[in-house]
């Protein structure tokens, strides 16, 4: 459920093909401020591509994506990306940077004062449940998968962007840590009021996090609605995903 009706991102009939292959086609939908939109789909369904169209890692071959009412193609791409936090699977952390430098990356790119960056980094580490004294000087390879992911979330939040893009951030975690992080992240998201686009192939995760679920199949958005609406959808792909929710025993 959108918390208000202000629009964060709009897709207008967006298609993208690369090397004569269609990646996504005819996407038209709206992302509202403060909502957590989960893009759900199988591998290769176009959900990651859709997400990357928002921060212009991809540019539409047809149609346009509006961020804050302005087409992404008219944004300075660097400015646009610094307004959007980006979290990908754990490998996205820079292995040669300490946790402190990783988290402080965007602020330092934005030329914040070192003291200011440090305060911000410490605040964020606390926010994601890592003791700054203990973790700030460590390197990513000295952390567990869950800790790395917390650092990833802190890094994305560093410059206080209004929006976060998250590409299967909890994908590589064990199920217990994963659930823990999902719940913590949900609280965090609601508390901070960030607009979040979250990509996953895990329907359970979608139900935990989403205010709305967008189901992708074959490069198209085949269904968009709340969890309730999803549960009652008759689309074959939605039914296929709902099958996964049934207990195995």
């Amino acid at each position, binding site marked *: 459920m959108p918390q208000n009706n202000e629009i964060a991102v709009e897709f207008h009939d967006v298609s993208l093909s690369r090397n004569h292959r269609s990646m996504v086609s005819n996407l038209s939908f709206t992302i509202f401020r403060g909502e957590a939109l989960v893009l759900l789909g199988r591998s290769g369904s176009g959900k990651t591509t859709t997400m990357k169209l928002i921060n212009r890692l991809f540019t539409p071959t047809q149609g346009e994506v509006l961020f804050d009412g302005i087409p992404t193609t008219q944004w300075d791409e660097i400015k646009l990306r610094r307004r959007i936090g980006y979290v*990908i699977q754990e490998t*996205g952390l*820079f292995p040669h940077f300490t946790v402190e430098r990783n988290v402080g990356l965007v602020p330092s790119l934005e030329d914040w004062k070192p003291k200011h960056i440090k305060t911000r980094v410490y605040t964020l580490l606390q926010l994601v449940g890592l003791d700054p004294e203990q973790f700030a000087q460590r390197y990513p390879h000295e952390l567990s998968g869950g800790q790395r992911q917390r650092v990833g979330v802190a890094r994305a939040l560093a410059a206080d962007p209004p929006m976060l893009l998250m590409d299967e951030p909890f994908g590589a975690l064990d199920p217990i840590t994963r659930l823990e992080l999902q719940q913590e992240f949900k609280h965090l998201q609601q508390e901070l009021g960030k607009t979040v686009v979250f990509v996953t192939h895990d329907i359970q995760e979608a139900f935990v996090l989403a205010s709305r679920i967008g189901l992708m199949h074959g490069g198209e958005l085949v269904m968009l609605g709340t969890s309730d609406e999803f549960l009652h959808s008759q689309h074959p792909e939605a039914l296929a995903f709902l099958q996964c929710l049934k207990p195995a025993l």
Partner: protein
Amino acid sequence: MKFNDFFLIKYAPEILQHTLEHLWLVAISIGIATLVGIPLGILITRQTNLRQPVLIIANTLQTIPSLALFGLLIPVPVIGGIGTNPAIFALILYSLLPIIRNTYTGIIGVDPTIREAGRGMGMTDRQLLLQVEIPLAMGVILAGVRVATVIGIGIATIAAAIGAGGLGELIFRGISAVNDQLILAGAIPAAVIALLADFAIGWIEGRLTIKGK
């Protein structure tokens, strides 16, 4: 045999002089080749259409027999002739390939998800290169410099044929005088220098290579 007759002692003053000449030749050429090769290697990661031509030229240069190259340079003005200039020029040409190729491979080999995370967070290409790609590729780049240095130390012995001095001088004199000791007086120090250089650059490489995965 008296201790003073041992060839490494007997020829010590000459060995020292030629070793210094040798080091000078190699240091200058590797220095210049590094300054040219690393930027070229970076360039071809950005301008992919230049990749093939640059690598093919560097590759071809590498295949010219060194003695022939030194000979071919004799009639060339400025960079050619006899003495140290053509020797340094030829050594630079031989050193370029490993340095360019390793710079290229090192940077291309950086985990694409790391590069994409950087881009996605709004790093400019320059920031990505200087803060992420080069530091992460540093181990591979230095390995290229190391190979170039070891090759250069070997090839520099041949530069004595065009009057560039260096340890090759003792070797060539030994060959014409059929004096094995003189040949060894040039060859052994050259081998020792190569091993030491290999070890030293390898050590730096180890220090600068990113730990972790």
